[in-house]
């Protein structure tokens, strides 16, 4: 059986998805990156190997997310694609008539506007992480609420408090103030959801024409409180699609499937032995000019696979094909 593997290595979580030749999801994994992308990619590969049907063969690998280049070199990816495109492709696969995609992940949030099946506009936060998963995670643990029960508890709120969501620092001090005033934890939790929904719509989505169907995905879409807050704010139904937390990986797999079908190329995948290989990264400061770029070097068995991080091409070198090893 032919299968296609997509890997989305984000700042907070790493997602893997395996599709069959009919683009049906065989298995998906959701792991915490914990600042160690290489180790987590290897762990994810091991899990996929265990979950794969015995007759399955990997015919294409694609990477996406902020560590897509690193992951691409390690895996021997056939395709390296930005996360805006992969998210859009996967969403259209499940919800073909989608017109607006709201995606909130660990460190970033995006909006993708789709009309008649093509992406016509997108936006992405850069200046501020307010309203992303990491902040919710942090606040949940501060309130002693597990991130898994955050949404359910927020829905119990009867009198949500108003929290300043413009900036995480202000939001946090505002929340502490409301706690000390004696507000219910549920009301603070839902107040936080409302603040983050407002913040998202006023920043990332500013000036974008949000039309239904509106799809909400990414890790934060697990949070029922956020879904409700967005629905109240936009006055429309919010759809959380199936596999919403791994859509980036699914989109990557869909794209590599299409591409290998068109060009007929054999996969460059380095194989599951990659999960046992000893990768080594090191960094050094380039002295060629006063830019003093920090160059990151990835090597396997003492052989340099790739270098990146420079402003110029002086150190760039990639060897993604198996033969070069």
């Amino acid at each position, binding site marked *: 059986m032919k299968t296609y593997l997509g890997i989305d290595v984000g700042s907070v979580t790493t997602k893997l998805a395996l599709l069959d030749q009919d683009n049906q999801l065989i298995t998906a994994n959701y792991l915490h990156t914990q600042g160690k992308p290489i180790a987590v990619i290897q762990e994810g590969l091991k899990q996929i190997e265990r979950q794969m049907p015995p007759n399955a063969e990997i015919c294409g690998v694609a990477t996406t997310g902020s560590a897509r280049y690193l992951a691409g070199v390690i895996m021997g990816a056939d395709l390296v694609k930005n996360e805006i495109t992969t998210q859009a492709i996967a969403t259209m696969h499940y919800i073909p008539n989608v017109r607006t995609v709201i995606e909130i992940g660990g460190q970033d949030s995006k909006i993708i506007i789709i009309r008649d099946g*093509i992406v*016509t506009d*997108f936006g992405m936060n850069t200046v501020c992480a307010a309203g992303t998963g990491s902040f919710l995670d942090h606040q949940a643990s501060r309130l002693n609420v597990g991130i898994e029960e955050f949404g359910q508890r927020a829905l119990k709120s009867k009198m949500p408090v108003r929290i300043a969501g413009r900036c995480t620092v202000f939001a946090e001090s505002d929340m502490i103030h409301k706690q000390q005033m004696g507000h219910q934890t549920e009301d603070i939790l839902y107040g936080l959801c409302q603040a983050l929904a407002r913040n998202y719509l006023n920043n990332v989505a500013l000036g974008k024409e949000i039309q239904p169907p509106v799809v909400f995905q990414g890790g934060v879409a697990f949070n029922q409180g956020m879904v409700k807050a967005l629905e109240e704010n936009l006055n429309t139904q919010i759809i959380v699609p199936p596999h919403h937390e791994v859509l980036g990986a699914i989109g990557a797999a869909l794209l590599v499937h299409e591409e290998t079908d068109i060009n007929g190329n054999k996969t460059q995948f380095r194989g599951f032995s990659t999960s046992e290989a000893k990768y080594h990264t090191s960094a050094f400061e380039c002295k060629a000019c006063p830019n003093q770029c920090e160059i990151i070097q990835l090597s396997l068995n003492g052989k340099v696979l790739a270098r990146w991080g420079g402003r110029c091409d002086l150190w760039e070198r990639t060897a993604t094909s198996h033969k070069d090893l």
Partner: protein
Amino acid sequence: MRVGIPHAGNIYIPLRTIFKELGTELVVPPPSTRRTLDLGVRYAPEGTCLPFKLTLGNLIEACELGADSVLQAGGIGICRLSYYAKVQKQILHDLGYDIEMLTFDVSQNKLVGLLQLIKRVSNNSPWSKIISAFHFGLAKLAALDNIEKVIHKVRAVELEKGTANKIFKESIKAIDELSEHAALKKITTEYIEKLGQMAKDDRADPLKVGIIGEIFVVLDPFSNMDLEVELGKLGVEVKRSLFFSQWTKFSLFLNSLGIDEWKRVHKAAMPYLKRDVGGDGWESVGEKVLHAKEYDGIIHVAPFTCMPETVAQNIMPSTKEDIPVLTILCDEQMAKPGMLTRLEAFVDLLKFRRRRPKLTSGTRGNRENLSWH
């Protein structure tokens, strides 16, 4: 006199030529680097724009190399550029550099003012010598820009990525070092031929992306993080109408004869913006309107906090001429990976759009303006 200058793309080359011909010492600071920017950020007012910070860093580095006077553009009514020279002079004095600020007025009396300035710093050289040096300097500028126009096309379709850029760098060096005006034409032709002979993908029909916005960040690769090189790597042909040689040709000469290169652009902007808003804001709106049908997409580059371009950015979505626009705001916080993600996504968007060019359901321009939040 030892005259220090700020960097802005390749502008140091004509200046170096003019000064060398006249025997005046020019202090060209090292190319802009992280250190230059750090210096500028440290001593500039926090909310000011990237060109101010970067050129301040250049001037500090020129002072470190012993410049006793510095050259900066100025004038009235343009944008913040009108106070660059005054504020930078004050900052340099506060840092203990007792320099003279030589201001080149880019708003009025441009040609005469510039020639008079050159006469003064060249210790009263005869006019004939000044004119000939000036002519040579501008010819070099035009030659570089002519080569760059070819580079824009070649980068998109070259088979071995990076070759065009290598030839471009060689040509910049050769033209910079050239001391014979008579040989300039030959050298330029040689490089253009070299680019013509490169191995190219002849069947490629590259996406065409217009680059518009504020002139400094558009023309300074350090400021826009090599935007045009990155687009070339993605197989995109760059189209732009801003070039320093074009600016000098019109602003110094033809404008005074009543020929305005921007007339067409301003006319195109008229339904949406009826007046100059400082800087290049009016032109940005006009260029979007004018090129909506010609190009696949437009990248609008502007310094963060730049008012003229912010005005333009907010008007652009409402034009009925429909073309995707990606706005990139440049400042010292900008990180290259973030920019690359957006460029890649933008190029994907344009590719999908080309595959299915007919959008139904009355898609209007306002859905197609992307921004770097």
